[in-house]
Structure formats: C-alpha cells, structure tokens
C-alpha cells in the first residue's frame, strides 16, 4: 500500500528541480557556520551558547522526533557537513556537469569497509566523549569542524558521498531507523528497470549524478542507504522512480537477509540510549561528572563499562535470547543469507534478522529519551537566538527570556505510549520473524522479553 506523491505535478517539479535541497542546505550551512563560530569563540556556558543549544537540543530533537520518524534519511541530503565537499567534487551546485561527472581522485573505498561497522564504532567512539561534547561548546565546535574537514578530504579522494555512506557516525543509525519512515524512494516497475541497461540512476547523466550513496534503485528494498536526494528521479529517463508515501516501517516487513552490521547498530543504539538516560538525565551527578572528566582514571572506567555494555553485554544478551528461542523451536538453524537465499546453519543471520525488531523499539526509546530533555530545556533556544555568542547581544529581543520548562507534566504521558507502541511493534515483528523463519510463535518469546525488560528498565528510570 503506497502512494506516489511525486506524481503530483507540483511535487514532481519540486523534486526534480535542485533548488529545494540546495536552499535547505544553504540554510543549514549558515546555521552550521554560526554553530562552529559560537562553539569556538562564544561563551563556554553551554546553555547560553548557540552551538550547544541549536545542535544538541534543537537539531537533535528535530532529527529524532520529526525528521527520522517522518522523513527517514532526508536530513542527510540537506546536511551541511558533506555539502562543501560535494560541491567541490561536482564543481557545481545547481546545474550538473555533463554526464554527471565528478572531480575526485576516484579512489575506491576498501571493500572490507563497505558496511556500517566504521559508523558503528565511530558512534561508540563519539559516545565515549559525549558528556563532554554535549556540554562544551568548544569541543562541539571542534568536533563538527573535524567532521567537515574529513568529509571534504573524503569527497576529493573517494567517489560520491563515501563519508556519509561509510563513515558518518550519525548516518549509521539515521539510516537504520529510517526504515520506519512513512516515505520512500523506489522504482515503479521492475520490468522497466530490467530493460534499461544504461543504469543512469547509478552512473549519472546530463540530468544529474549517479546515486551519491552507491545505490542501484532497482535493488533497493529499504531506506537504510537512501537520503531521498532525488538524483535517481532526475536521471531516470524512463520516469520509473517515484517518491512514495507508505505504511510506516514497511521496510521491516521482510525479515530475512538482514545484515550483521545493521543488527549491531540497533543493539548498540539501544545500549547507548540506556547509558545516556542514566548518565545524562539520571539523578547521578557524580556519574555525569566522571563521564565528562575525560582522561581521568574514573573516565577510563566509565569508558570501559560503556564499551563493554554496548558492544558486548547488550548484543551478547540478545544473541542468547535468539539462541534460546531457537532452542525452544527444536528445529535446526536454517537461515537466510544476503539476497534472501536460504543458508542453512548460519546462526548469525538469524541473530541479525531478529535484531531488526529493535528498530521500532529503538526509535521509540530514542524519541522518548529526547523528549525527556527537549521540552524541559527548549526555552534556552530563545536567548541563544538573540545572543548566540553570549556576548550580551539582543538581536530579536529574546536575550533575557528566562528558562521555562514546556509542558513538563506531559512528558510521561508521551513517553509511556511511545515506549509501549515501540514494544508492541517489536513483539509483532518478532512474531513475524519467527513465522517467516518457520519457527513456532514462542520462539519469539525470549527476544520479546528482552524488549520488555528494556522498556520496563527505561520506564522505571523516566518515571522514577
């Protein structure tokens, strides 16, 4: 069940043109410039610094609560970090070069890194310093500046958006959770694609560039690596690609052939939501201070615990649940490999297939976590807008607006249904996974209990 919204003439014109994405990117780039400047030169007081407030409060809330759930990976197509590199790579901003030519050294990204493992470990590496990054404008400014420089160099050396596809620590989870989005770019008729040998959607044409994310649209079955930048819509001479509105989470209905790196991302993000909930918004001031004291013995202990919890304990526990469910089914492991072909004996594949149930749950958890501090602190956005550097400006007359929590009493009433909806989605998906793998329904019980425990644990923390 899907509706090709790009068939509406106005929408089509908007998507085929380049001004929409470029305009939004120009705005996000301007905000990004202010973020870096205020981070480096502005007040070190995070709650009065534009960089901290507009990145870790406003942007993060927009990303988690609005963009990912409703527009999937669209943010990536207007993200300011890869924009300068991409513009240099294309030597154009609006009108593409003939044939969609790119000006890079043309190096190929190493094969063993063509996955999101680097993004997963990049996220974990950032997570180790997150208590510092999230509160220090200078560190935030420098980290974002480093991102933009790495992205720039990557764009000039490698093809397309290699940084976004394989390196960006944010892009990994944004891609995985974008499978929940009610929108998607897909082909209309596979037969048309089969008959079109030139594959301009991948290699580019005078009308546009080959897919910046290395996708072949005809093979795309989920949103994970699609930023909806619209290049394939522009380069398809057959008008066989559309922007669809569809059932949320439709990508998750195929429960076979899931990838281990994406599974790990879901588990890691679940663990990270727990750690952040305890460290950043929990009642343990000493823990937050330890997490911020980078380089101290206490911080090394914190870092070790975080890494073990996220990379070993949570995935290990989930793996045990999958194995237990498998044992309950009393059937030999008969899994599927990439491409959907059944591959008997590959237990890791079953693990990866089941891990997809953490996508709806994980997204719900992250939205609930984000709500917990967004509504409380959003009022910092007004003074930071008028006085971005904390230099005593009052550009819009809001510099002296006092901190006021917005509808804080409503937060639990939003969090509880969200987490329960995520749990229901996860259990329903677990049951579907069991069924599609030929297992009895109660094989899904251990992983469902795992999800239940996660929800109960978080609710205890949020409602305490």
């Amino acid at each position, binding site marked *: 069940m899907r509706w090709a919204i790009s068939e509406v003439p106005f929408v089509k014109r908007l998507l085929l043109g380049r001004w929409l994405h*470029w305009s939004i990117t*120009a705005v996000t*780039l*301007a905000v990004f*410039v*202010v973020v870096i*400047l205020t981070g480096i030169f502005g*007040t*070190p*007081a995070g*709650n*009065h*610094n534009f960089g901290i407030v507009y990145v870790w409060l406003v942007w993060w809330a927009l990303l988690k609560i609005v963009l990912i759930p409703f527009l999937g990976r669209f943010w990536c197509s207007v993200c300011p970090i890869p924009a*300068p590199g991409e*513009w240099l790579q294309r030597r*154009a*901003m*609006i*009108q593409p070069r003939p044939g969609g030519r790119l000006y890079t050294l043309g190096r190929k990204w190493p094969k063993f890194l063509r996955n999101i493992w680097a993004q997963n470990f990049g996220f974990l590496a950032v997570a180790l310093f997150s208590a510092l990054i999230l509160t220090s404008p200078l560190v935030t400014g420098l980290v974002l500046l480093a991102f933009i420089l790495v992205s720039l160099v990557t764009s000039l050396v490698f093809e397309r958006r290699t940084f976004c596809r394989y390196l960006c620590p944010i892009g990994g989870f944004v891609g995985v959770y974008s499978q929940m989005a009610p929108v998607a770019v897909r082909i209309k008729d596979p037969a048309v694609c089969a008959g079109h040998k030139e594959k301009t959607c991948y290699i580019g044409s005078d009308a546009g560039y080959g897919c910046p994310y290395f996708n072949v649209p005809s093979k795309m079955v989920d949103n994970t690596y699609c930023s909806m930048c619209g290049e394939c819509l522009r380069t398809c001479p057959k008008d066989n690609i559309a922007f669809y509105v569809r059932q949320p989470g439709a990508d998750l209905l195929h429960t076979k052939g899931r990838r281990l790196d994406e599974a790990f991302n879901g588990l890691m993000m679940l663990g990270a939501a727990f750690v952040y909930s305890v460290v950043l918004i929990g009642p343990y001031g000493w823990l937050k201070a330890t997490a911020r004291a980078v380089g101290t013995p206490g911080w090394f202990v914190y870092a070790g615990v975080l890494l073990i919890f996220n990379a070993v304990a949570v995935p290990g526990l989930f793996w045990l649940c999958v194995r237990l469910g498998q044992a309950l089914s009393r059937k030999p492991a008969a899994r599927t490999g990439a491409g959907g072909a059944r591959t008997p004996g590959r237990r890791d594949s079953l693990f990866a297939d089941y891990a997809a149930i953490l996508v709806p749950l994980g997204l719900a958890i992250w939205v609930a976590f984000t709500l917990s501090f967004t509504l409380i602190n959003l009022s910092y956005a007004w*003074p930071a807008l008028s*006085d*971005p*550097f*904390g*230099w*005593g*400006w009052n550009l819009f007359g809001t510099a002296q607006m006092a901190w006021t929590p917005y509808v804080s009493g409503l937060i639990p009433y939003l969090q509880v249904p969200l987490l329960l909806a995520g749990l229901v989605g996860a259990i329903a998906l677990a049951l579907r996974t069991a069924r599609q793998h030929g297992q009895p329904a109660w094989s899904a019980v251990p992983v469902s209990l795992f999800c239940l425990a996660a929800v109960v644990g978080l609710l205890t923390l949020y409602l305490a």
Partner: protein
Amino acid sequence: MKRNLFAVMTVLLVLIGLPAGLFGYQAWRTGQLAWAAGVRVVDIVARSPEQGGFAPDHLVLKAGEPVRLRISSADVVHGLNIPGLGVDVKEILPGRVVEVDIKPEKPGRYAFACTRWCSIDHWRMRGVIEVKADAAHPAAQETQTAPLYQKLGVNLDAVWPMDGPRPAQTPSAERAAAASGGLPESLLDPSQRVATAPADAFRQLRADPAHSQLGDGEIWDQVAWAWLHDVKPETLSMAGSLYSRDCAACHGPQGKGDGPAGRNLPGMQKMDATGDGASPPAGPADFTDPARMLNASDVVLQGKILRGGMGTRMPEFGSLYTDDELWAMVQYIRTFLFQPAGK
C-alpha cells in the same frame, strides 16, 4: 551557469560574509556602545580561580574617566564587589553579560573580588583597579596609616595562652543590662578596651572588691555587656551579611569553624595552636570556643581579618572592607560567644 553562479555567490556569502558580519557586528556594537555612552568599554570575564579567576585582574584607568565594565562568567555563577567604587554585582550568570558604569574620581588602588562561592579556591578570586592621577585629578597625599595591631605592636602570629577563666554558661549582655553599672571606663570605652582580652577583663572585675558580691557567671555577663553594650542592631545586621558572604563557608554559619570549604585546608597542618606540637587545629577558628575567643583582644581579631594569612589560606579583607566594616565584623563574631542585648 547563471544559476550556479548565484548559488556559489550565496554560499560564499554564508561562508565568508556571515562570519564577517557576526564579528563586524560585535566590533561595531562595542564601538557604538562606547560612542553612544561616551565611555570606554572594558570586558571582564570571570572564571573560577582554578581556571584563572578574573581576566583581566588588573585594570589601569584614568581618574575621572567614565568606564563601562562588561562582566561575564565563563563557567559558574560569580559576583563582583568593588567596595571602593561602590560596585556590588551580586550575580553574574554564565552566558550573560552584566554592564556596570564606573567613574573613579580618586586616584588609587581599588581591590575587587568575587562574592559568590564559585569554587574551593573562591577566596583567591581577586583583582585590582589602578586609577592613575592626572592634572585634573592629582594623587591625594598618602594618608594611609598602619593598622592598629602594628601601632600597638601586637604580634598576630604569637601563640597566646588559652588557659584563662571560662564561663559556665553563655555570657549574656541582656542579663547584665539591668544590673550594669560600676564598670571601669577602661572597659566601657571601645578605644581603651580594644587591646584587652575578655579573660583579662574578667580577672580585673573579679579582683575588684566592688564586684565581690557577684558570682562568676554574673561577672561574665558584665564582660559581655562591656563588649556589646554599644553595638547597634544595624551594625550587626550588616556584619552578619558580610559574614554569610565571606566567612561562613569556612568558619560555618554558626561560627563553629565547621564550614564545608574549611575542611582539610593544607595550611591547617602547619598550625599548632598550643605550641607543644600536640594538637594542631582541626579547621578554621571556632568562634564559639571560649579558650580561643576569651583570650583574644579585639585588636587581634581585627588584625587577623584585615591581614589574613596565618598560614591557613585565610584571605585578607583589609583591601575590601572599610574600617567600620572591620570593627563591625569583630563585634559580630563576638556574638557567637556573647549573647547581645535584645536576643
């Protein structure tokens, strides 16, 4: 190509024009403010002492020059007190800017200090404004006199005996007020009493046959009355505010020497109140301790507040307090042991 050119120009505007605009606005604003107000603008950034304290912590101004101080905090809440210029900013919130206009007419050195307990080393957060003389504002003749303890030759660091008489109950000026009378002028006149310790006053009265019918407790009440009979409630109130702001963190709100900032001060280990090496003090002075307070004269207490030091990291307040404030503080800390009239 026109479309690309427009896009490139827009992006260049964002990458170059926006930063230039932001910094240019700040430069213009600072200059414009100074021009509009006809003042020189000086930015002072406050950081906890471990991070550098006030920056700058030494300002040189011209006498009669109007100056706008733009004070901000880079970390926690600070305060700023410049007693000599009548500036008392009670709260400098992180990320906010407080503007204060000053116009120092009198050449000299004006100390300033943080007034909020911003860190364990808060007491180190000081600075000085040096106001230079010119033809219109000549330097005043040096009128500063030596502190009283120096004039009287009192050694603040000497170990004084602590084994004098002690009251069995809290001496009360209130109780003594009704029956007061017959006290020698040397105790009633503050200028004559200043070098006398309460324990010596007790001995003097006890030895006086005129008070032979009084018990020891009543004599102690007379001593309390002698010390506090001329203190005004507003003086105690003012001194109480200063005590809460500057002293309570180490000496405790009740003067018991148990304030959280006074624990484990490195300097305390070097102290030996008894001189026998047996019992170094556990913390800052306990103003409720009869042995310590009854054997100390007012000039000793005033001198210690004024000069600080003593190897205990006690800060000096001579540059921040007026003479009246110093003596008011002495009277206030006496009330930890002597109950004033009206209480």
